[in-house]
């Protein structure tokens, strides 16, 4: 067996193809939103390979978009523990259902749909979270400890306020304002209408604005 090269069985068991594909596969945009053509083409290539059974192509998709699943789950559920469970469920489910993915939407849009549904199922099954530990593992750009504490407190307050919204408003706010998706994309992901999404956004924004006015 060769040394610990990129294709050797790593400690995580995946075949890490991502950095070898550098230059060939354009990376996804941070925070979601509209993807570039190059990113979509790279995703389509990986999806096609994964559908043919190339596990390492799916590993690459998980590397590219796993963060999306976890981030959305965290913001919808309000705690790391449930977010990890739901992200994991969603990413495994995506693998199981990949053969049914016809490319009618982008891969991230399809994944948003899966993770949002899993999160909503979890919300329906469990009582509201009593701990909001959003920033346990978050890194920061570092403008001094005091500034970081203040920033983290504000971010915690926002995340707590979002997690306290009724689920439909929470989904709309997270997908539109945190993930940068358009109202049309949110409607497609949630199986709703643009008018309904806007209505949830209006109500969610009002509540958030009032809740957060002390944090300005």
């Amino acid at each position, binding site marked *: *067996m060769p040394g610990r090269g990129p294709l050797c069985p790593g400690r995580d068991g995946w075949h890490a193809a991502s950095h070898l594909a550098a230059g*060939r596969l354009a990376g996804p945009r941070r*925070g979601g939103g509209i993807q570039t053509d190059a990113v979509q083409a790279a995703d389509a290539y990986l999806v096609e390979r994964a559908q*043919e059974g190339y596990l390492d192509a799916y590993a690459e998709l998980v590397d590219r978009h796993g963060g999306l699943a*976890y981030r959305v789950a965290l913001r919808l559920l309000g705690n790391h523990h449930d977010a990890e469970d739901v992200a994991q469920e969603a990413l495994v489910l995506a693998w199981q259902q990949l053969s049914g993915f016809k490319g009618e939407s982008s891969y991230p849009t399809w994944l948003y749909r899966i993770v949002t549904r899993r999160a909503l199922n979890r919300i329906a099954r469990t009582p509201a979270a009593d701990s909001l530990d959003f920033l346990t593992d978050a890194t920061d750009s570092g403008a001094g400890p005091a500034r970081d504490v203040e920033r983290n407190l504000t971010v915690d307050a926002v995340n707590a306020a979002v997690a306290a919204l009724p689920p439909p408003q929470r989904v709309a706010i997270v997908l539109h304002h945190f993930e940068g998706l358009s109202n049309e994309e949110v409607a497609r992901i949630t199986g709703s209408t643009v008018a309904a999404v806007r209505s949830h956004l209006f109500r969610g924004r009002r509540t958030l604005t009032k809740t957060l006015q002390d944090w300005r």
Partner: protein
Amino acid sequence: MTDPSRPDDDLWQLLDDPARHLACGADVDELLEQAADGQAGQLTGHQRDCPHCQAALQEFSRAWEPVRRAAVTPVPFPAAVRNAVARQVRKLTADVWYTLDLADGGAIRIAAHVVARIASEAARKVPGVHVVFGRSTHANIAGLAETATLRHRDPRAAVGVLGRTAVIHLAVAAEYDQELDAIARDVQQRVIAELRDKAGLRDVLVNVTVDDIIT
């Protein structure tokens, strides 16, 4: 009525007001939407001349700033999730095994995905090759092997064991200005040699598909 010189108190009250209109008639929800979407600076014709709208947009932009800050705060993807997904997907995949030795001391087997990984590693070393995805023998071939050996299977052999013969599929992206058939042949030779050396597989069939070009 809204006094533009003191937008705060009235604006917060207006958020609870069923009508939600400023004194100028502008819809508070739409102003909040405009500010939250980061469009507060893109004033309409009415807004350019309206102190009520301008004050509200300014105030809503300030109110929404913590949300904008939270939205750009990085949320790292936990390695534990990635690893757990890898394990589960691996389990879900109908994996096959190659048996290298069935001696009295026990069986030595190597997982097909490990064979695929060795093959991919070898292929990537070929000059001109950029991206490789490796896949070992198809699950349906494993199924056929299982069916064929059902009655005669060695009790020490696991389901899907295929002996020392491996069929590897490699999808390769190569550089544009290279001779693709030469690259494919190099890939085959190197993969065959490495699987023989590293995994002890005797008969190796390597199917190479050059399915993309790097310009």
